[in-house]
């Protein structure tokens, strides 16, 4: 990218700078290590020499063109600002619907659903396993009746909704589509995302139900169904967020996510015999935005470049849309502290900024009280305003991919990409992600990285303000509380639905679903039918459990 003369000058400049450093009274090298939060060493200065082999056209290029390092859309945020999509949900469907309307009023531009643990795991509120968990970390959804309340007065043809749901993704999506029918909105107008990424469950988030093989079959069913009937829907959000939150490094987050993506694409091709271009453009991704500012920006840029290469050359997709990596980002929950919670506003702000400078398509910003409870109204408002201020006031959206060409950022992007490829190759050698998960490879890497990080914090090699440095006494803040009465109320609602519905029809649809599961028919139409008859989420999931078996935590540590 640079002429020999430029490089020579840069080299000489470096030598001179090093001399100045040695002479300087500010000891640059107090024995302190300058590294990212993921432990990548960062140099004091970057020059043209650091990216001398980088070819501008093929490696950086332009937004909207391969390899999309600078973004998928040629117009960037000037064409369309990222979606302000706040992950939210708690208590009853009514509580959450209220919060959703509030957020929409305050200017969020997309919805995102947080479900409670029983719902995430495919249990109804009255299951003994669900005891004490109802509504505590998300909304409780047992049947379509709850879902109708959740989406009350939300026009599904005007708003897109993301749902963080994995084993029961088909069920929640079916409920969403059933509501669309009730609203008279045709499915080709309905937009949104289901997370539906089981591989990362086995690796990190651990809301799993059935073993890996049948889980992937269900995912391929949903992807196929989407390509046919719900073309605007992102039927999977291949996630790195949870991998990072479980303690991985940035490189691991990137590599494992892409490896998961590779496994999914391969499966749809193999199992459904679909051409890759038929479904690739509806795959979406989800990343973490952690506290090391530049590491994250480099990671996002590397991600786009790598996925484009994978889709174009490994999977031989022809349509440029298939090479796009569109992703949602959430600022890092695990970087927030319970101590001095107002500090979290600053953390979330820099993380949001990194995501924006990294070109995210949509963004959730964490609330300051995230470590203590679910977001209060006060806290969630600040989080939303954070995005709005970045978009409207800071000017960072004025130009696309402003950091391109920075010696540092481009060098770091290259470095992260290189290291991520190493992991992907290793996983390929193991036989792919499924095989790697089976032997516990990503799980153990993550657990090791998490422990390493904790040791660095405990020994103060890495600082967490308010926790191991600048510690202060503090007054507690008001947090959101979930009413303990909720569980009983929800159980009553559930009982009422079961009483009023046509139980014969429910049994019939469940039986048909069972048969579909046992064959290789696509299960989605049967799930939709069952939800319309007000079959409960657990009743449907129990069919999955019955046919496909249950997965138990192998406990890799």
């Amino acid at each position, binding site marked *: 990218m640079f002429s020999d003369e430029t490089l020579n000058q840069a080299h000489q400049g470096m030598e001179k700078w090093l001399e100045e450093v040695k002479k300087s009274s500010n000891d640059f090298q107090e024995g302190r290590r300058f590294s990212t939060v993921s432990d990548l060493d960062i140099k004091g200065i970057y020059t043209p020499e650091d990216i001398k082999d980088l070819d501008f056209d093929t490696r950086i290029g332009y937004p909207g063109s391969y390899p999309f390092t600078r973004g998928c859309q040629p117009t960037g945020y000037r064409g369309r600002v990222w979606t302000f999509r706040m992950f939210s949900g708690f208590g009853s469907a009514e509580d959450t619907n209220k919060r959703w309307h509030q957020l929409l009023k305050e200017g969020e531009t997309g919805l995102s659903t947080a479900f409670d643990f029983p719902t995430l795991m495919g249990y109804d509120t009255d299951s003994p396993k669900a005891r004490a968990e109802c509504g505590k970390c998300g909304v409780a959804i047992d049947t379509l009746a709850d879902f109708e309340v959740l989406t009350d007065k939300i026009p599904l043809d005007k708003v897109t909704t993301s749902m963080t749901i994995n084993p029961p993704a088909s069920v929640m999506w079916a409920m969403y589509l059933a509501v669309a029918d009730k609203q008279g909105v045709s499915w080709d107008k309905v937009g949104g995302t289901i997370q539906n990424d089981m591989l990362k469950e086995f690796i990190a988030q651990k809301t799993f139900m059935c073993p890996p093989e049948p889980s992937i079959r269900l995912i391929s069913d949903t992807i196929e169904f989407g390509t046919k009937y719900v073309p605007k829907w992102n039927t999977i959000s291949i996630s790195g967020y949870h991998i990072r939150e479980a303690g991985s490094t940035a490189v691991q987050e990137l590599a494992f996510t892409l490896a998961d993506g590779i496994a999914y694409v391969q499966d749809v091709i193999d199992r459904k015999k679909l051409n890759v271009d038929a479904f690739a453009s509806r795959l979406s991704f989800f990343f973490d935005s952690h506290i090391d500012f530049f590491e994250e920006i480099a990671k996002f840029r590397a991600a786009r470049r790598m996925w484009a290469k994978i889709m174009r050359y490994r999977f031989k997709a022809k349509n440029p849309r298939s090479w796009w990596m569109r992703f949602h980002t959430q600022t890092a929950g695990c970087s927030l502290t319970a101590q001095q919670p107002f500090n979290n506003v600053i953390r979330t702000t820099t993380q949001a900024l990194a995501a924006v400078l990294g070109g995210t398509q949509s963004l959730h910003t964490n609330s300051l009280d995230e470590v203590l409870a679910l977001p209060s109204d006060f806290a969630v408002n600040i989080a939303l305003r954070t995005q709005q201020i970045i978009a409207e006031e800071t000017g960072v959206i004025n130009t696309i991919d402003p950091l391109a060409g920075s010696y540092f950022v481009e060098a770091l992007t290259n470095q992260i990409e290189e290291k991520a490829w190493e992991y992907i190759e290793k996983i390929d050698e193991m036989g792919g992600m499924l095989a790697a998960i089976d032997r516990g490879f990503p799980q153990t890497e993550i657990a090791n990285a998490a422990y390493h990080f904790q040791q660095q914090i405990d020994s103060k090699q890495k600082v967490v303000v308010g926790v191991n440095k600048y510690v202060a006494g503090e007054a507690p803040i008001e947090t959101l509380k979930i009413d303990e009465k909720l569980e009983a109320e929800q159980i009553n609602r559930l009982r009422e639905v079961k009483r009023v519905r046509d139980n014969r029809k429910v049994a019939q649809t469940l039986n048909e679903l069972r048969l579909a599961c046992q064959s290789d028919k696509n299960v989605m139409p049967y799930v939709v039918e069952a939800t319309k008859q007000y079959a409960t989420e657990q009743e449907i999931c129990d069919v999955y459990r019955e046919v496909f078996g249950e997965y138990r*935590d192998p406990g890799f540590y």
Partner: protein
Amino acid sequence: MNMDIISKILEGNVRAAARLMRGIEDGAPNAVEGLNSIYPHTGRAYIVGVTGAPGVGKSTLVDTLITAFRQENMTVGVVAIDPTSPFTGGAILGDRIRMQKHSTDQGVFIRSLAARGWTGGLSKAAISMIHVMDAMSKDIIFVETVGTGQAEIDITQVADTSIVILTPGMGDAIQMMKAGILEAADIFVINKADRDGANNLKMELQVMLEMKANLPGGWKPDIVLTEAIYDKGTGELVEEIFRHRQFLISSGGLEARRKQRAKLELIEAIESSIKSYIDAGIDKDYLEKLIDDLVQRKTNPHSAALKIINQSIKRVKPLLHNYI
């Protein structure tokens, strides 16, 4: 030891048994008494050793075996051994994670054990725990050991049936052969048999087994293919275990093994008693002096040892009855 505790153990009381096991493991003085009291009530349980390299699926396989034997109405004990960190002396014992569905079954007792530097795969404590479970009337006891290859010989001396688990693609067949495991194992299991290379591994193993010298009328180990995580092959494995047991009973092999085991235990007890007797009498200052002498080459290790042993015996003889 409290006779009340002993009778509780014989009745199958989990808490009492667990406490005795803990005492044994940490060398509590009254634990040996407890062990002595229950010993007469041992010798009935059938002991199955399960061994293999890390990652082959030992715990998952034992989990399926527990289910199978519970269905046969037999009570089950499991001693699951994991390595101790050589740097810190601590351990994470994770075998029982895969067996946790049995944790509420009163007919199953799972006990996790850290190897504590016993590279022999089985520590004295492990053997004692087997005795306690035996005294609790557990019908079958699985002993899952640290799969370090070479050391797995030990478990075959303690178990009635020894199962060795291999998986395709892990290159262990050759290693196992080198370690002499071929002679020692009674049943071979190829787990994760759905993986590529399962059939090749089976053939390799069959060839090696055929090359091995076989006594006429001797036991010919079979190879069972399993996919423990899908509970496939468990039935065949259970049948093999029963078949081996039957063979041992009718050939007199069971008697022979138990006699061998008793011999090993006795010899071990003699050796450790002698050692603790001698250790008790060692004069630390004299020991330090001998070490200095050695450094200055005024003496040699064996002569020094004899000196201090002699001195120790003299010191301890009057108190002999306290140590043995």
